[in-house]
């Protein structure tokens, strides 16, 4: 009996499965995103203290959540590559890195836009902001290291090692607001301290963003597999041409 991950080790099977899943995930992401944006901008009340700016939260919180989840996914994929040599793990890690960097950047950007009216400044060097900035640098390091190495198999393994070294930052981000006294608010107990009128839009947006990420991630993985196939076919074609040329010379 094969497990799901074992069956997915066959790229062809993965391509079939992802081709069937991708439209559904994309559609669900689009519908939920539209519904979530409607809730966030029209159907939810303005905050009694923060006014309309509270609506930034519906973008900021899902981005920040994804920034961490994507890194965890990369670390998990890296582990899968280094330990189990799973062929899809590297494709997954490679496809997720730019997406994670983008979400981290969005979290920083929306946070800074929210900080200006609330804290009076775009940026403060508090623990949560600083640690997320380091996470952003880690993403950039992963992308840069991979692009600097020509040998693809070495590049993927070295990037995986770096991803696992960097994984120590995740607990620091998660608990930074509890360990240090920071300007950024501590993590809220979602069920009790968020008002129900804001809980639903936030929840819908979080699910929508997560689905959006998985849709883009699947698509990027499919592109990466196709790119590798094209590369393999090209190499084969060149090798075949060389052989023909050699025969012709004889």
């Amino acid at each position, binding site marked *: 009996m094969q497990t799901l991950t074992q069956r997915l080790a066959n790229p062809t099977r993965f391509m079939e499965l992802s081709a069937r899943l991708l439209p559904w995930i994309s559609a669900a992401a689009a519908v939920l995103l539209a519904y979530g944006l409607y809730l966030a901008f029209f159907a939810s009340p303005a905050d009694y203290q923060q006014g309309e700016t509270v609506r930034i939260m519906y973008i900021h919180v899902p981005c920040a959540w994804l920034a961490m989840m994507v890194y965890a996914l990369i670390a998990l994929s890296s582990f899968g590559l280094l330990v189990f040599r799973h062929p899809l793990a590297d494709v997954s890690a490679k496809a997720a890195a730019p997406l994670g960097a983008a979400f981290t950047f969005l979290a920083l950007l929306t946070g800074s836009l929210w900080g200006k009216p609330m804290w009076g400044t775009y940026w403060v060097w508090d623990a949560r902001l*600083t640690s997320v900035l380091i996470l952003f*640098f880690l993403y950039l390091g992963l992308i840069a290291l991979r692009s600097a190495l020509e040998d693809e198999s070495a590049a993927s393994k*070295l990037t995986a*090692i770096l991803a696992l*070294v960097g994984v120590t930052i995740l607990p620091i981000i998660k608990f930074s607001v509890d360990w240090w006294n920071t300007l950024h608010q501590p993590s809220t107990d979602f069920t009790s301290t968020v008002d129900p009128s804001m809980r639903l839009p936030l929840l819908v947006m979080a699910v929508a963003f997560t689905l959006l990420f998985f849709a883009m991630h699947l698509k990027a993985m499919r592109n990466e597999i196709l790119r590798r196939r094209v590369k393999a076919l090209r190499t084969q074609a060149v090798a075949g041409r060389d052989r023909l040329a050699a025969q012709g010379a004889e």
Partner: protein
Amino acid sequence: MKSFWALLHRDVTLAIREGGAIGTALGFFLVVVSLMPLGLGPDLNLLSRIAAGILWIALLLAALLSLNRIFEADHEDGTLDVLATGPLPLELVTAAKSLAHWVTTGIPLAIMAPVLGILLNLDLAAYPILVATTLVGTPAVSFLGAIGAALTMKTRRGGLLLALIVLPLYVPTLIFGISAVSAGAGPTGLAASFLILAAISLVTIVLGPLAAAAALKVHLQ
């Protein structure tokens, strides 16, 4: 264990007899620190307030410059291949090389830091703490740096990439190194920062050689 000490001895001797290596890092340290007052203005009160930060940042940059030599020279002349096939586990090879980097770069920089503190009007009471924190913190600098050096050994534009990868990893060391020196937090805050700094160093001493060896194995395949 004997070959571990032999390798450590060889690397330290090489670094000393080659000259240049230690001197360049110290010279760079001196130049960066003396550029700061020129850029920030010679206000002694301001300088004494930010002295610890300047010293730590300049120390990290100076150490960063010498990181890529940890493995590169041995890789170029084939020594690394011999070491990898030798009886000593690669993890201990990387540990010996990181330790040698600490002895030849970390310790000189840590000893130099209080001397440069004079240029920045550092508070006299902070001197012993500065020496202690730099001595305790620099192993993390060398052992984390060795991971970066191993990862970027064969890359194009290795030096810049090394900085991009390693500097974010240095942030915790920097934060706790500085918060220990600028002891506005009082004796308990000082002890806490100091202990966390020591913990960071100890963890990197254990995990750094493992990660660096894993990276080297990929390169040497």
